[in-house]
């Protein structure tokens, strides 16, 4: 097993060992405690520079990373750009090289293209954290989901986790499927046929045509945001029909275990994928997820910063 402290970058959770994930979650538990102190700051990353480069809009994730970096006393800089302004002029590589000239230890990249963090990691010295790349992965989101489940239910192995929504196009679903699978949870997915690509079973999940059978007996129900901006007219006919067929209502939730957790990566479309009373109900841990996001991201920054101190290698050209 690779120790979390041996990670050079955090590009995704595919293939990450259970022990590594556990190590990160354990560390996040200690980080969470810092956030509950009257003075929410430790000097661990003093003198380190953390840069967020968001080439796709996201206020929440960027803020969460920045809070995490600041609680560890890192200096932060932030760069946002739309993908279009990048393609018009500077390439991603040029932008990153310019950033690098300012000497960041860690670059946190959000990008609409799958694989952009992998590409960047081959060309810069800094550690790269994937803060969401296209439809590929969103590793810190999945880590905070796992953290929240473990905190509430005490374990991950053997749990039944239902994930409902646009599995085909969701990086949150993908990272969760990889990480929950590694931790021994059983993942059951559901959504309209257009959002369940053929061969999903090969990722180790069970596929349910009806939401009811996916959430029956579930310990956790994770609802995905319906991404209107990503939808062609060919994925589903209307919000209304989506809600009727796949929306999480109180009646449907009764099929799950009594102490079920309801999760959502946010932002929520109330009345589309989830009713307001479920989103705000006692089963909902949606705000816990946001809170835990800071702790998990502190843990990630902490381990990567240790690595950049001891191992400042030159960038390895374009070799994978």
């Amino acid at each position, binding site marked *: 097993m690779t120790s979390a402290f041996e990670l050079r970058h955090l590009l995704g959770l595919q293939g990450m060992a259970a022990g590594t994930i556990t190590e990160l979650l354990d560390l996040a538990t200690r980080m969470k405690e810092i956030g509950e102190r009257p003075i929410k700051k430790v000097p661990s990353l003093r003198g380190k520079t953390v840069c967020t480069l968001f080439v796709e809009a996201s206020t929440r994730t960027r803020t969460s990373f920045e809070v995490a970096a600041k609680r560890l006393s890192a200096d932060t800089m932030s760069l946002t750009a739309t993908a279009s302004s990048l393609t018009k002029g500077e390439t*991603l590589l040029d932008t990153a090289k310019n950033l690098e000239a300012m000497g960041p230890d860690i670059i946190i990249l959000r990008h609409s293209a799958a694989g952009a963090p992998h*590409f960047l990691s081959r060309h810069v010295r800094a550690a790269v954290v994937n803060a969401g790349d*296209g439809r590929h992965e969103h590793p810190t989101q999945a880590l905070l989901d796992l953290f929240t489940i473990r905190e509430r239910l005490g374990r991950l192995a053997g749990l039944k986790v239902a994930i409902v929504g646009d599995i085909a196009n969701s990086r949150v679903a993908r990272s969760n499927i990889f990480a929950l699978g590694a931790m021994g949870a059983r993942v059951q997915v559901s959504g309209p046929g257009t959002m369940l690509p053929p061969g999903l079973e090969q*990722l180790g999940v069970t596929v349910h045509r009806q939401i009811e059978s996916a959430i029956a007996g579930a310990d956790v129900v994770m609802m995905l945001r319906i991404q209107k901006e990503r939808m062609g007219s060919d994925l589903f006919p209307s919000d209304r029909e989506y809600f009727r067929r796949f929306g999480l209502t109180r009646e449907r939730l009764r099929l799950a275990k009594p102490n079920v957790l309801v999760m959502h990566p946010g932002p929520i479309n109330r009345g589309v994928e989830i009713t307001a009373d479920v989103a705000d109900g006692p089963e909902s841990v949606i705000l816990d997820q946001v809170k835990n996001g800071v702790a998990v991201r502190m843990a990630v920054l902490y381990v990567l910063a240790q690595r950049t101190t001891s191992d400042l290698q030159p960038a390895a050209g374009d070799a994978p």
Partner: protein
Amino acid sequence: MTILKRLPRSAPSRETSSGRLVVTDALLLDSGDGSAPERRAFIAIEAGMIAFVSSELPSEWKGAPRVDAAGAWVLPGFICLRTHVGEPGYEWREDVATASLAAAAGGFTTICATPDTNPVNDVRAVTEQLMTRAAGAEGATVLPVGAATRGLEGRHLSEMGDLESAGCVAVSTGDVSVESGQMMRRILEYARSINLRVFTSPAEVSMTRGGLMNEGLASLRLGLPGVPAEAESVAILRDGILSRLAEWPLHFQRVSTAAGVRALEHLAELGIAFTADCTPHHLWFDETAVAGFDAVTRVMPPLRSDRDVAALRGAVASGLISVIATDHSPRTRLEKWVEYSEASPGTTGLETTLGALLELVRRGALPRAAVLRALTRGPADVLGRADLGRIAAGARADLTLVDAGTPWRVEGARLRTRGENHLFEGAALTGLTRSTIVAGRLVDVDDSEAEEVKCAYR
């Protein structure tokens, strides 16, 4: 292991006073059709044609300049039905001169230039410009392929008659199928009336658009939008059936999937005439190569599954796919050092095809006879050229001398192409071109001049 891939600069010089050239001690291989059993012979060349092939050299030929083929296979010059020469419009990637030399370095004596240039080769003027540039090229012969529709947009027929009379050897629908079935039917009917071959790269447009890799387990893991194999099989079946309606055979380019192979088998069962090609990279790589998001692995059609690779090899072995075409698509580093979705698809191929295929032969993955035929006689038959793809008296003196057993490792910087996107970079291949003879002329593919041109563009 690294072998300097440099062809001899040596005499005889290109202009021989008598216009004669003799290839001595040539080992001729049976390329699968029984026309040339394995034997040693002299090949006598005069005025660009093969005068005779004989075990004895008549005394009046004794003084002719010679190329010593001892130890080499002597094969008909290879023919590529799909090369992107970059000209006009994309000269930073390649031009006719560099493509022609890169082709010769890879053993090709004839390359067919795709029409997806800027401007598109859909009018006589572009074809004529290409013909002029081709006449000055020092390596392989360049034959233009015209666009079947104006701008390759699939909406209006191009002036195919004009294209044909200006020198186009075929028309093509471009990188994807024609969207409208009726338009495809009209293309075939019209091409039949002027006896022009039609090339199509089967890809149902609406299922292909936006796709970055093969749809399958790998795309599921990587979250990249996929192109399903069915986009290919659906297009093969539709256009195959339309070609029967129009009574004009199609040539399918870049078949890449097991589903596509099954569709071709189905057409054959229906008695529909067609020919088909595939690329060397689809015979070698599968979709797992994409895992690190290195944009060099972005090609169209995308790299498919290992099952697809196996099916393609089977189809080449059986002759169902009778042609291997490089789909040489040079790009600069700048066009590949970007996000995967932003990268321009394609890989170079002219100089790695022979080595890749002979390595697959060495491993037992492909039969030698089928491979050699797919580079020579197969494409010559598609073009309807009885004077190409064979070694016999009266054929054009296009010959390739191959050191078939030489192992080498691909180093992109040493290749003659201006392209910098080599999917085979670092691969261990088998077999090098020793010399290439185009129309009786020994090609000097020494790369020092090409290197200067390359530098000027960087």
